[in-house]
């Protein structure tokens, strides 16, 4: 506790002066680029973007396959229950399929009436089990790195624009009317497809990989996707771009499972309010005509 207190008060001292630089030093590699040079993240076209955005079921199903066969080795998805996979607005797998999928997992439950924890087959109401029991176990296995849970990954990341004042005004005028909320998905896609050879003058730390999208460009995760690695049943291409796109869409759903309900209701609400506002306006004009 005391240690925390110390570090937080130095934090504030630094906030006052040159916060970015001081914190970056304190944090090491992750924050090496702190405030300055955010990597440019390209915008992708997503079926779930915009006012009428909807998820592409087939894409979500393929994305789940990528998650299950690749990402799940290291990353959890603890906020998604098996049942969510069958619910409307998501991948919409069949209820039986989801039940079977859940049963293929062993889940710890208990304590039973002897006071012992026990293993049983998964049920649709269970959360998807994470690969590690806790962060410590994950770090022990992963050479000190912690693969984060992916339930909110597209919400918890952004395209991180550090734009000039004019570009900021421009992007506000563009992004608010279009309802652009896909910065996190753009970033995840850019990260998954952003592995490359490091520039000649850059020396990577032990066990690190070069990634164009990752802040600081040094990431512990090895390139997760290889061409042809996963066999899609619907005949979609087995390219890294395709895998990345599909799994990102799936994770965007996992982070915002009510997206379709929200947008469907939103269109009705906006239409209703538009009509109301117009009617109220004309009623007001008529009323005031008598006194002007």
């Amino acid at each position, binding site marked *: *506790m*005391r240690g*925390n*207190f110390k570090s*937080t*008060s130095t*934090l*504030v*001292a630094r*906030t*006052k*002066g*040159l*916060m*970015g*630089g001081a*914190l970056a030093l304190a*944090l090491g590699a*992750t*924050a090496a680029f*702190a*405030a*300055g040079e955010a990597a440019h993240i390209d915008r992708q076209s997503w079926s779930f973007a915009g*006012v009428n955005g909807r998820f592409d079921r087939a894409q979500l199903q393929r994305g789940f396959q990528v998650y299950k066969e690749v990402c799940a080795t290291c990353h959890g998805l603890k*906020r998604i229950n098996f049942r969510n996979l069958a619910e409307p607005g998501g991948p919409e797998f069949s209820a039986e399929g989801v039940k079977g999928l859940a049963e293929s997992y062993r889940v710890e439950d208990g304590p039973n009436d002897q006071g012992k924890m026990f293993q049983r087959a998964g049920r649709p109401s269970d959360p998807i089990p994470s690969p590690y029991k806790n962060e410590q176990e994950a770090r022990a296995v992963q050479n000190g790195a912690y693969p984060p849970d992916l*339930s*909110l990954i597209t*919400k*918890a*990341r*952004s395209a991180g624009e550090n734009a000039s*004042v004019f570009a900021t005004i421009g992007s506000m005028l563009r*992004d*608010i009317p279009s*309802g*652009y*909320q896909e*910065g*996190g998905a753009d970033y995840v896609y850019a990260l998954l497809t952003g592995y490359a050879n490091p520039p000649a003058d850059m020396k990577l730390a032990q066990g690190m990989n070069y990634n164009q999208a990752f*802040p600081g460009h040094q990431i512990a995760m090895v390139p997760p996707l290889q061409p042809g690695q996963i066999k899609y049943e619907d005949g979609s291409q087995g390219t890294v771009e395709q895998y990345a796109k599909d799994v990102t869409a799936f994770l965007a759903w996992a982070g915002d*499972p*009510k997206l379709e*309900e*929200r*947008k469907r*209701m*939103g269109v009705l*609400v*906006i239409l209703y*309010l*538009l009509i109301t*506002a117009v009617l*109220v*306006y004309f*009623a*007001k004009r008529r*009323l*005031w005509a008598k*006194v*002007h």
Partner: protein
Amino acid sequence: MTQHESTYRPTTRAGQWLDERLPAARLMHSSFVDYPTPRNLNYLWTFGGILSFCLGVQIVTGIVLAMHYVPSDKMAFDSIEHIRRNVNFGWLIRNVHAVGASMFFIAVYIHIARGLYYGSYKAPREVLWILGVIIYLLMMAAGFMGYTLPWGQMSFWGVTVITNLFSAIPFVGQSIVKWLWGGYAVSGVTLNRFFSLHYLLPFVIAGVVVLHIWALHVVGQNNPTGIEIKTRADTVPMTPYATMKDFVGLSVFILFFSWFVFFAPDYLGHADNYIEANPLSTPPHIVPEWYYLPFYAILRAIPSKLGGVVAMFSAILILAFVPWLDTSRVKSTKYRPVYRYFFWFFIFSVLALGYLGGKPPEGAYVYWARFFTAYYFLHFLVVMPIVGVLETPRPMPRSISEAVLGGAGGTPHGATAAPERR
């Protein structure tokens, strides 16, 4: 409460019976129905009603959220996700509350700017204005504590940075900070007390709002000309006229509000707050919510911790002294040919500080933040007193009805347009 004659006539026996014992309906009627409002109010005057709406929305959605939210450091983040994913329409209620906070501040900034432009703080409305400043301070406290509750990374580190500001107070600073935290660091204890206070403050705000409206109805509303009401011809009854106009303003505002709720609910927030609070990992770039950014920029512009804190709080408190800093003879900036340029430059400065508050404090950003901070204070301490004395106001209409109807000939109610001319 109001200084006009009530036209309330209870039509039922029960209504008459109650009116003789507790004239609550009469109070409501004379406050919101036959209350005389200036006939020339523009749409900027609809923000009072809009702000009452915002407070109501925050209280109602907040009460429902509190039924599902768990104020503990272990459970807070998970309970918000539970609300987003599993509670019926939880995503909607939570979006309305989170976006609602931003909308509340958008409305209050427009309301304050309107008051500054039209001189609504000048005699006899000083107390009304000061009550408004108190409401704004309470809103900032409520908003800040509310942002703590999701217990994401920005919640945690925002609280850490802001509560640490109090440690700049000489001698007692460290003790105050420990007292606020309830320990030696921001923890679940802090979260618990902030939740309690976050639930309390809106009702305190509601109480001060009642005083604000009371004071308003004693002195009457200001209006775009800044000329006081002289005769009945200058006014229309609040209902239906002003209320109908309020509904138009409110409808458009709700439309804007809904756009964010349904199509850009996270636009006004920060992605890092979808990462659970972690005391061991500091985000590379800690920023408060957008509505505090101008003051955050002022805080960081001063190269001393105590100085920054004093400047930040002064920037808000100075508003309370505006009634006495402004020496102008006329209220409305409409008739002030010189001051208007300073006014718009002041608005520009606040927006610029807002932009700079979101940037890292380095390089040119720091110099610009200092420049605009300097102007922020110069505007109140130098421009307002001096320009008010030196400036010659433009010719003004003699009354509100003359301003609206153009000359005495057009008065529909006859007689009373400009009595001082006879």
